């Protein structure tokens, strides 16, 4: 089989692994949404059976969610093992081989965390388990990206990075804030206290709710739910409101990232389209969050919200990684539809569009000094550079 086909097969397998990981996060979300995390008291057996031989007739109630989660986790573990082995023996890039090894260790650790959560009956381990799952998703996503033809083609490219330092930093910050928001969400879910604030967009009818002891006692007196959640505490109300504020922050940051991309690379740029997709994704996630409250934390909606958070994190990671990969192809200029403000001191290019991987000929620009590493780094510098045959390589 030609080398190119083999690497394409590897990439497809990596994509399958990443997609399966995302599904596993959804199934794990269903376990917590249905409060079924402890429905199977033993591990790695299931009610004394070998996990793979547990009778389907006994997959009842909460057992169904927890048991299918374990089975699917085993499947993802198998995929990751094959992927890691494939990378180790066939991947020419040494760092990629080690990344496969890291993914293997991560999935093993994740399985162990899940088992310990059950065996030791520790809710806190459940929060680590949920957070680690997101990190593992990022690993498999990154491997899928790094094994893609798109990435490999750009590894061979030289020239300055297309994305400015400012854009890259903003994308990374937005991604990190998304991750912190996910941790906060996991902390809330593993309190097993249900909805600390039952209405949206207000909170107990106000912009910011009371959190004094008398009010909380009143809430708990009137709060009846067949799931008989733990009593609400002031901490849980505070965490819930912090999650709402965090959502607003994420939305604003992602919009800023998109606006920056649009300003720097034009509306048709793949980076711009990608960040616009990210904005759409976050808007959908916010709507799912609101729906979780309106539906009194219906299990399926809450789980979609968990998966939405994971997809938002994946998207931010892909954009951030791509921003460190896409370079200005040799022989091309980098025009701007709307030059950054810091370019005011330099001559302005005429309007043109640019796509990642292809570009359109542009007018000549003045050529200032370059950074030591040959990167554009500063949009101001790149915007005023004449690329045609004069840029030094890294």
């Amino acid at each position, binding site marked *: 089989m030609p080398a190119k086909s083999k690497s394409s097969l590897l990439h497809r397998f990596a994509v399958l692994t990443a997609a399966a990981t995302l599904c596993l996060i959804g199934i794990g979300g269903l376990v917590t949404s*249905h409060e079924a995390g*402890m*429905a199977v008291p033993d591990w790695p057996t299931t009610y004394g059976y070998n996990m793979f031989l547990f009778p389907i007739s006994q997959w009842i109630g909460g*057992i169904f969610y927890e048991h299918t989660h374990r089975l699917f986790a085993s499947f993802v573990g198998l995929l990751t093992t094959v992927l890691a082995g494939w990378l180790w023996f066939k991947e020419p890039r040494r760092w990629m081989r080690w990344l496969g090894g890291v993914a293997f260790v991560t999935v093993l650790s994740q399985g162990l965390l899940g088992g310990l959560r059950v065996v030791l009956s520790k809710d806190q381990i459940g929060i680590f388990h949920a957070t680690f799952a997101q990190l593992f998703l990022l690993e498999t996503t990154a491997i899928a990206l790094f094994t893609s033809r798109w990435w490999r083609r750009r590894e061979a490219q030289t020239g300055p990075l297309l994305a400015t330092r400012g854009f890259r930093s903003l994308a990374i910050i937005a991604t990190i804030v998304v991750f912190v928001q996910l941790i906060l969400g996991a902390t809330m879910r593993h309190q097993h206290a249900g909805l600390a604030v039952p209405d949206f967009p207000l909170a107990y009818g106000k912009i910011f709710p009371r959190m004094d002891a008398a009010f909380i006692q009143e809430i708990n007196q009137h709060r009846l739910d*067949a799931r008989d959640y733990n009593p609400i505490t002031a901490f849980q109300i505070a965490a819930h409101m912090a999650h709402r504020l965090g959502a607003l922050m994420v939305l604003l940051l992602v919009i800023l990232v998109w606006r920056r991309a649009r300003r720097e690379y034009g509306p048709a740029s793949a980076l711009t389209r990608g960040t616009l997709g990210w904005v759409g994704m976050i808007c959908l996630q916010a709507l799912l969050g609101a729906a979780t409250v309106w539906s009194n934390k219906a299990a399926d909606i809450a789980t979609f919200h968990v998966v939405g958070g994971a997809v938002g994190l994946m998207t931010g990671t892909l954009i951030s990684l791509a921003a460190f990969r896409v370079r200005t192809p040799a022989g091309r200029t980098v025009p701007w539809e709307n030059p950054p403000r810091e370019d005011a001191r330099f001559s302005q290019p005429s309007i043109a569009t640019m796509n990642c991987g292809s570009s359109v000929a542009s007018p000549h620009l003045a050529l200032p000094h370059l950074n030591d590493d040959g990167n554009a780094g500063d949009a101001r510098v790149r915007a005023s550079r004449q690329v045609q045959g004069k840029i030094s390589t890294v």
Partner: protein
Amino acid sequence: MLTSREFRARLELLPDMKLKFVLLSAAVLAGSLSFVSAADVTGKVTLKGVPPPEKEIAPLVADPNCGKLHTDKKPTTRFYVVGKDGGLADVFIYIREGAPKGAAAPAKPAVLDQKGCEYIPYVLGAQTGQKIVVKNSDPVMHNVHPTPIVPGNQEKNRAQMPNGPDLEFSWTNPEVFLRFKCDVHPWMFAYVGLVDNPYFAVTDEKGEFKIANLPPGKYVIEAFHRKAGKVSKEITVGSDSQKADFTLEVK
């Protein structure tokens, strides 16, 4: 007619027998006195205010295995079980301060059962060290998952097959309320008031309770309901039965 040897032999015994007789009589008298002076504390807990209406346990009804166990009446939550005259059931009454220490845990276990995919009773009292036996009278499997939060009381999680053998639990530290749950059927809950003395009770459907044989003395007695909250009062117990009524309020 006794010989002198026989008389001396009987005389030597006489002081021991006399001492024993005196001691025995004193013990009987003391026991009688204590039995006579221990008293019962009875009372009623009334709920003031309008509680929120109970909800149908929709997931139970929808469950294919559990739903068919409730053919006559749809099961509802049991947060506020209020009698016609306002008597509140499932209130745990116990001596919070002043209870005599050191009483051994009763040999008879406290019993929780699982019927119709619900815990029966909803609220139970037990003493530290006393066995709590959990039965499964259902044709479905459950997992019995007590979740104590007091340090030193260990969380446990055990499978219980349909009509399977009873499970036994006990803990050493007082905890009100220690929760039992089933994760296979996440609507199933029971709460145990665990105290370090035998003087406790749970109100019935009329809101009434009785704590028996409380020795004379001053005590703080508390009425604790999971949702309505708690209220306590000082009582002085003498030789006669004591009455202690409580009112809890839903605001």
